[in-house]
């Protein structure tokens, strides 16, 4: 399939091309339907419209229109020939047999070279920007993009991870506790790291009228972290969550593979090392990096409610 796709006269089979084309067209057109991911994308686009993170992975209609069975095949040939290809296999099999099977069936054009997947660290906006766009929606979507100044390797790998865990990953995180449990402002709120882009994202679904209040509470939590207002217990729980999710991954073949892929691609440490290193993060480390994290863009996809009667 990989080396002998359904191709005739240097073009992909028209019929199967059309089916896929139709699917992708629908996907591009309905991008806005998922208001959560749409709002996050709009936030990225406002943060830096030229950065790779603001490129929509599903693509753009203008480019999509230009794709033909011919130029797609030309691209595919180039893609297969000039990209790094890694093959991972997991399960119950004979190593030698698998190796010779792969050697026999995959003709490699390219020898392994290491690429650097991390983006250049961007300039951080001096003052945060606030963007509000309006749609006819029942719920408003909040997306906050934070950036951080260059961090040392250990801090990037571990301190930042721990910071994110305490701030907004689990149901006992700072953001969940304050925004949802104490103030009933949201059903979901979370923070997420996108280390390749040097971004920390915070997202939630709220009432339009609660926008200022929610942002205020989020900032308050980030300030509290800066001042060291978190306990040893908070750190301990975050570490346990981190280690136990690494251990749980071992029951799932697919996740084991994924883990190797990220180790290879991103140069992250092995599970064993990660479990040890995360414990070395100190409260001082955490406070030190909080000062380097800054809000860049606050985006609200504001819902205007005009409810249709069903």
């Amino acid at each position, binding site marked *: 399939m990989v080396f002998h796709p359904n191709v005739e006269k240097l073009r992909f089979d028209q*019929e199967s091309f*059309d*089916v896929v084309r*139709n*699917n992708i067209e*629908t*996907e591009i*057109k*309905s991008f*806005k*339907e*998922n*208001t959560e991911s749409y709002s996050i994308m709009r936030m990225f686009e406002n943060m830096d419209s030229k950065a790779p993170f603001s490129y929509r992975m599903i693509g753009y209609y203008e480019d999509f229109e230009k794709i033909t069975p011919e130029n797609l095949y030309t691209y595919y040939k180039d893609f297969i020939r000039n990209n790094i290809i890694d093959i991972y296999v997991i399960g119950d099999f004979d190593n030698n047999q698998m190796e010779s099977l792969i050697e026999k069936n995959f003709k490699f054009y390219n020898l392994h070279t290491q690429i650097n997947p991390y983006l250049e660290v961007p300039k951080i906006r001096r003052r945060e920007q606030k963007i509000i766009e309006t*749609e*006819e*929606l*029942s*719920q408003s979507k909040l997306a906050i993009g934070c950036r951080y100044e260059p961090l040392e390797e250990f801090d990037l790998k571990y301190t930042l991870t721990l910071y994110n865990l305490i701030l907004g990953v*689990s*149901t*006992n995180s700072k953001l969940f506790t304050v925004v*949802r*449990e104490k*103030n*009933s*402002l*949201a*059903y*979901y709120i979370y923070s997420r790291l996108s280390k390749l882009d040097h971004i920390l994202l915070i997202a939630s*679904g*709220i*009432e339009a009228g609660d926008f200022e209040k929610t942002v205020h509470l989020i900032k308050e939590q980030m300030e509290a972290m800066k001042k060291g207002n978190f306990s040893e217990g908070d750190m*301990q*729980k975050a570490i*346990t*969550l*981190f*280690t*136990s*999710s690494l*251990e*749980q991954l*071992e*029951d799932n073949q697919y996740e084991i593979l994924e883990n190797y892929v990220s180790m290879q691609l991103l140069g992250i440490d092995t599970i064993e090392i990660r479990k040890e290193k995360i414990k070395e993060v100190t409260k001082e480390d955490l406070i030190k990096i909080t000062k380097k994290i800054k809000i860049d863009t606050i985006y609200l996809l504001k*819902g205007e409610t005009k409810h*249709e009667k*069903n």
Partner: protein
Amino acid sequence: MKKIDLKNLDVAIYYKKLKNGLDVFFIPYENKNNYFLSFLTKYGSSVDDFVPAGKKEFLHIPQGVAHFLEHKMFENEDGSNPFDFFSQSGTGANANTWFTRTQYICYGNNGIEENLEYLLEYVSSPYFTDENVKKEQGIIEQEIRMYDDQPDFKIDDLLRLGIFQKEPTRNDIAGTVEEINKITKEILYECYYTFYRPSNMALFVSGKMDMEKLEAIVDAYDHKYKIKKAKIKTKDYEEPDQVYQKQQRIKMNVVVPKVGYAIKINNTKFSCTPEFLDYYLNLFLTIKFGFTSEFREEAKKEKLMTSLYTEVFTIADHTTLSFYADSEHPDRLVEKIKKELIKDDITEKDIKRIQKVWISSEVQMTDNIEVTLNNCIQDYLRYGQIITDRIDKIKMLNKKDLEEIRSKIDFNNDSLAIIEPKEGTK
């Protein structure tokens, strides 16, 4: 405990009924590190009228109570919260409400005994106050609004409104903002003490475990919660066999229309068991509309749809064959589905082909502790027992019985729901 072997599969289930009536199922795995716990009550959103424990009169409750109750069980009198407890051992915790059950789950690889003990304890200790009820209304309102904006979710809601006339199943599990604002702590307590009795509940544990230790924990729970069994009286909604509305169309922020289409069937009119009825209906949908079906290939080539999802859904005496699709030509797609449903072209060869894939997926599923646990729960809720010989039964499926079942279905008893783009939506 009683050992139940799953035939043709390397899985055994251990069962016991406690004195207080709780059904307990352990599904141990030697080769796994993780575990999965589910503590459930056979109570969900499909009950809006019942006789509360110790009373004689029926009580009508607002929509969304079961789901509201699920949220509120995370409140403890001493101010602590279950998420905090579970996080000490890196354990994930959650809960969810379905039409016919509410379940409290936790999963991880540490501290199974402490977590089981805690799970049983916190779900057995309701603590509702005016204040904490009010607090939850804000959170659930945002949950409802979140789903309001999701067309894939809305199409399902809309379709159920067309299929069902009286059953509360027609309503959204979470209720509406208006309805949940009517919920009070008194209503929650009435529901809790009626439906959260051990005799209306079950515990499922799968994964790595020391069964003896777990058994001691459930025995202690049995001793502590000696709650009398009671027959629960819920209203028979006398749901008509006819669909409620043939067609509904609404407009939303979609670019490509969403289609929901369903056939409503009275499932008590078949000579086979409910289990075989489910197998045959699933077999039928897979052959006709599955990933390897001609229908799917044709419809995609004709650009009638980009995605299609089918489902056999059963609630009480009614079963639906449901279709969900994204389609630029909803009416033409539905015409095509209708034709396909009555086209008489299934062969023994088709059945053999699907059986093979089905059996291998049954085997594969047992490698996942969560999937296996969920399958057992489904069996328990739908058939009142764990099915131990599913593979043998799949092998028995044949054309003659399939045709007989199909001949009894009125394919004109259908309901169509379409979400169309608003003017100017791009």
